[in-house]
């Protein structure tokens, strides 16, 4: 947008400055960790991959809850469907049809999630919002139990191992990690940093999730700031009103539900090829609630918020591991992470119920505002600090 950093800073709302400050501080901490050898570069990249995965999950839920007000408690199920969808087609140990290219797995994983979303949506989306919430709560368990018990299809509790990396069979990228030379970087004060094959592998994964996140962000941004996104917002605020104004709310809710579920499945596909192993444990309902927290914390309806929320949830989830190692804390901290997250959500609800980065722009197709070159910017300031 603006190249002058000072002007860009001045144009931010207070919340945005806070977020920038927070991210900068955390980044500084991470760089410090990397340089002193406290944080292994490969593990750091693995964490980044997890962040990307959570951001995708948050995007998916945001497209359902944030845009349309659909209450989906089966985030973990759609995530798992994506993961199993690709795993069943690509893994060596797949009891169905292993050995396909991961791209086929990607398509099948997403299609599987879309089909299940339609199946669950047909009976529930015509009813009031509560029914989808109830049905999705059940769906998560049903999917988990099917995967656990239908051994002849899914390997049951043993899970599926032997998944290929996502880029297996690609021209250059498949051999990229092996082809890269091992690097040895000597840091003046700290340890020597080794960058070898696993590092390049992890870097490739981060690149992949970056592409997934970037593509989803662009797609969601485009569809949200449009008449389509406006109808979803209307449904969220008042479904009867949307109907009275001639909008087929059932069709819109279905589209929003399928879109969100497919993005969740995309996160699952990434996870399967990151971890190279999937098991019924990936359907843990706790993940659903982490994602809910990310979306509410970030600001329902805002993709930037979902991004930030996903980032914070991982920071807390993984950061507490490090506190454990630090000698100055007398308690075992890791089990407290749920408490921390709980307190955080109470604090957000109490002091900033709209979330940290609530949506700011009017949902008007940018192309129609052509003459005001970057549309929405003059207005975003007004909306930035809403009714407080």
């Amino acid at each position: 947008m603006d190249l002058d950093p000072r002007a860009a800073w001045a144009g931010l709302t207070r919340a945005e400055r806070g977020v920038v400050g927070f991210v900068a501080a955390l980044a500084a901490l991470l760089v410090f960790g990397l340089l002193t050898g406290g944080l292994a570069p490969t593990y750091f990249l693995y964490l980044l991959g997890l962040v990307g995965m959570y951001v995708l999950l948050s995007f998916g839920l945001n497209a359902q809850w944030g845009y349309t007000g659909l209450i989906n408690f089966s985030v973990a199920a759609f995530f798992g469907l994506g993961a199993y969808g690709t795993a069943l087609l690509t893994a060596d140990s797949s009891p169905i049809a292993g050995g396909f290219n991961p791209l086929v797995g990607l398509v099948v994983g997403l299609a599987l999630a879309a089909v299940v979303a339609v199946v669950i949506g047909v009976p529930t989306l015509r009813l009031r919002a509560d029914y989808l919430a109830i049905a999705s709560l059940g769906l998560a368990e049903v999917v988990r139990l099917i995967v656990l018990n239908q051994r002849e299809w899914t390997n049951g509790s043993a899970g599926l191992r032997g998944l290929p990396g996502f880029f297996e069979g690609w021209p250059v990228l498949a051999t990229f990690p092996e082809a890269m030379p091992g690097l040895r970087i000597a840091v003046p004060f700290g340890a020597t940093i080794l960058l070898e094959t696993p590092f390049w592998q992890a870097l490739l994964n981060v690149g992949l999730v970056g592409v997934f996140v970037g593509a989803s962000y662009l797609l969601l941004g485009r569809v949200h700031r449009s008449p389509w996104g406006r109808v979803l917002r209307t449904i969220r605020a008042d479904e009867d009103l949307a109907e009275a104004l001639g909008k087929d709310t059932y069709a819109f809710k279905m589209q929003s539900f399928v879109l969100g579920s497919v993005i969740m499945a995309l996160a699952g596909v990434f996870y399967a090829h990151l971890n190279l192993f999937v098991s019924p444990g990936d359907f843990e309902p706790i993940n659903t609630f982490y994602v809910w927290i990310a979306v509410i914390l970030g600001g329902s309806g805002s993709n930037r918020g979902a991004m930030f929320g996903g980032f914070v949830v991982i920071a807390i989830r993984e950061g507490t591991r490090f506190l454990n190692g630090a000698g100055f804390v007398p308690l075992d901290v890791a089990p407290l992470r749920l408490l921390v997250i709980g307190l955080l959500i109470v604090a957000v609800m109490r002091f900033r119920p709209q979330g940290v980065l609530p949506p700011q722009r009017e949902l008007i197709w940018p192309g129609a505002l052509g003459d005001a070159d970057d549309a929405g910017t003059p207005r975003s300031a007004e909306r930035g600090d809403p009714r407080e």
Partner: protein
Amino acid sequence: MTRVSDGDGGTERAGGSAAGDPVLRVEGLHKAFGGLVATDDASFAVERGTITGLIGPNGAGKSTLFNLISGFYDPDDGRVWVDGTDVTGAAPHDVAAHGLIRTFQTPRKLEGMTVREAMLVGPQDQPGESFLSLFTSPTAVADGERANLAAAERILEEFEIGHLADQPATDLSGGQTKLVELARAMLAEPELLLLDEPVAGVNPTLANELAAQIRRLNDAGTTFLVIEHDMGFLMSLADPVVVLDQGSVLMEGPPEAVRSDERVVDAYLGGGA
């Protein structure tokens, strides 16, 4: 307000059978909730170009009738025609597609939207409401959006609330919300507009403003069916007036005739007078 009504003032018309050009025709509508009969064989018609009033004591079934007509309730029996098309049992958005737009008794606020955005929900069949079109024909979407933005701006100006466009839709007063609702409904270019208590909770100045707007839009060709408890407002605006009592049509006629009709007085005073 001195609208010319056809024929002698006091005569009742059997619903639907009258000659003319009805935008809305309702015949024998019946709806019961458990043992409570809310609408009992209601029949009437709304002629094109009129402002038809719908009055009745509390519990007469006015809002139920609105919900039946606009598709929010399915009738147990009877039929509804909008612009000659049978829409009985159709979903509300289908009824709206046939040109019948309604407003609600309690103003519906669009949380998280500006007035401009809330207005832009009004236009029907926007190209950008199709998910695919956003990718396959972005220029059509942009053209549609530009036209709708211009129309929204123009209508807000006509309603003299252009200055509200940037306001959050939730920050308006009750009266302003009603004005925005009416303005938005006009963006849908309805054949018939159903207003459910347009001036309930609105201060007298704004109520006059609303009345003037309704008259202006009516002159421009929109037909209205209005439920209202404020008799002064309705009697000066509507002609004819349909009186509903215990779920069925008690009488229909010009306001003067309704006002002086004994059955109407009885209905309102519970038969004691």
